[in-house]
């Protein structure tokens, strides 16, 4: 069976005064049915814009195009028919980073939940309400029926994010996109919400795209990982393989930045990646990571660096051979 979502060669350009900002430069996203894909990368690398393009929710001035977008066997690249209108919300739901401002302050929780279902399905108000109560209980909200009459300002951030999750589930979508769903919440709540998302994803057998900075979360939840850097996916693979066997120097750098229980000695220095992300405005010649890479050599500055495919779903964008990459990782940083 084909993948639930398959995006090839996604590009997003934003015209600015200083030039064209190539925010996403040829990204591939594949989500299998019932599996979780994590998009990882530092701030500004184009994670949000990538998923917003899939939803066709980009800000007005940003323009996207892709070589191919298939969702659930349907071609979404067909601009004339605008098929997104029926898919958004009913087949693909999205949860955002800002739970405090993502609900309309003027309407009750119940109204906003029911509306998500009533727009897409011919059901009675009563059925919509029952479904809302059922899902609020599912996402761990107590006294669900009375919450329906409450307004967003009466709920805490964590509760509002739970409401957002319940709202996403109203139509029973096969794909849920969560864009940094916990960044704005405090640490204990973060863990609860992530555990909830993972449990919900299993129970409803949904595909999920989880955007996060947190590699620990990725290791626990994700089946597949895309590491993004400066508008590109620089490495992708199954979570297990990618963590055990990182190939791209950027991925290796990221993994050196996090402590590993049992391996990293207490008090030991964690790694960091020196340098800054290059400006995404204008075209870039050569490898996107060249100015921060420990292993940079001349061809990196001039060649077109394309994805090297190792096996199905396992790719990395680097001129070094997999063997050299593996040795680099085991040797540690060059002095």
């Amino acid at each position, binding site marked *: 069976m084909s993948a639930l979502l398959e995006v090839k060669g996604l590009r997003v350009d934003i015209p600015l005064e200083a030039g064209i900002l190539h925010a996403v430069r040829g990204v591939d996203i594949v989500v299998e049915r019932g599996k979780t894909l994590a998009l990882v990368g530092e701030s500004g690398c184009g994670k949000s814009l990538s998923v917003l393009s899939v939803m066709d929710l980009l800000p007005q001035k940003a323009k996207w195009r892709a070589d191919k977008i298939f969702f659930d066997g349907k071609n979404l690249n067909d601009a004339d028919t605008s098929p997104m209108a029926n898919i958004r*919300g009913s087949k693909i739901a999205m949860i955002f980073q800002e739970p405090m401002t993502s609900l309309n302050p003027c309407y009750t929780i119940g109204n906003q939940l029911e509306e998500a279902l009533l727009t897409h399905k011919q059901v009675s108000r009563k059925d919509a309400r029952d479904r809302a109560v059922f899902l609020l209980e599912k996402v761990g909200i107590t006294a669900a029926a009375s919450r329906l009459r409450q307004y967003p300002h009466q709920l805490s951030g964590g509760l509002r994010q739970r409401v957002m999750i319940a709202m996403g589930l109203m139509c029973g979508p096969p794909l849920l996109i969560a864009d940094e769903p916990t960044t704005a919440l405090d640490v204990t709540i973060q863990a609860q919400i992530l555990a909830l998302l993972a449990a919900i994803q299993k129970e409803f057998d949904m595909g999920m795209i989880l955007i996060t900075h947190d590699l620990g979360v990725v290791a626990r939840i994700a089946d597949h990982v895309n590491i993004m850097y400066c508008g590109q996916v620089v490495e992708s693979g199954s979570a297990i393989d990618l963590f055990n066997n990182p190939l791209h120097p950027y991925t290796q750098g990221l993994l050196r930045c996090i402590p590993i229980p049992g391996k990293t000695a207490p008090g030991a220095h964690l790694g960091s990646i020196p340098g800054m992300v290059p400006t995404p405005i204008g075209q870039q010649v050569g490898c996107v990571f060249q100015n921060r890479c420990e292993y940079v050599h001349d061809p990196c500055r001039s060649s077109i660096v394309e994805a090297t495919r190792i096996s199905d779903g396992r790719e990395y964008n680097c001129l070094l051979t997999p063997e050299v990459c593996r040795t680099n990782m085991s040797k540690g940083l060059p002095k």
Partner: protein
Amino acid sequence: MLIYIGKRIVMALMVSVVVSFISFMILNLSGDPAIALAGADASPEEIQVIRVQYGLDRPVIVQYIEWIGRALQGNLGVSPYFNMPVKDLIGARIGVTLILGTCAFAFAILLAIPLGVVAAIRPNTWIDRTALTISVFGQALPNFFFGLLMIIFFGVILQWLPISGDDTWKHFIMPAVALGYYASPSLMRLTRTGMLEVLGSDYIRTARAKGLKTFSILFKHALRNAIIPVVSLGFVQFGYMLGGAFIIEYVFAINGIGFLAVQSIQRADLPVVQVIVLLLSVIYVSMTLVADIINAFLDPRIRAN
């Protein structure tokens, strides 16, 4: 909600009392009412007699308390010029002013809000620029001047509409348009900026992500939030249209409160002027109150505090 409304009403009453007191003081300071009553060529003795007769020799505060006390019982005094109770003078004219103000308000709202919404949906397009042009004209033309232009064009040249008086509904068209058009630019600008801001907000992105229809996104989710400051401003302007239509009523010879106010000021008919000023302050304060109550219905956060 009821507590909120109750608090607002108490505040509104207090503001009315303060405003009416201040205006009473100012009117008393601006000229000697006894001279006005006695006439310009009266002797000092005659003026003194009048002063005592009308109780004008006592402290202003005493006069105010007496006056407001009578006003609350429905006795608004007598106009020396008309030799008629002020209550009857006002009663005969308030209907006309209410009709004019309401029509002007409706015109302003119907012009400003759709234009503001359209301009916000298509910012920096010809629609937006047209809306801007219309509003700049509205702001730049004083309303009496716009009224005169309309009189010349529709009244004198085309002869479509009557140019003065208040006998038929046709008489109200031009003054209502002149008054409403002048008020609409600020309402339109406020609607536009409000809509632009709200349309960029996170909850509108959520609404779009839910796959809602454009209509529902614009009117259910965006406009309800964007309209809140417009309601506040709109009702202040409504108050202005009800009470401040002095010049327009004068230009179109509409026999309303504004016309009466202008005439009474010219005649130094102090009891009438005093009641009109009190009436205006009550109108303004109650319009603000109405706006607050409507906004509390629109936004649950307002009724929460």
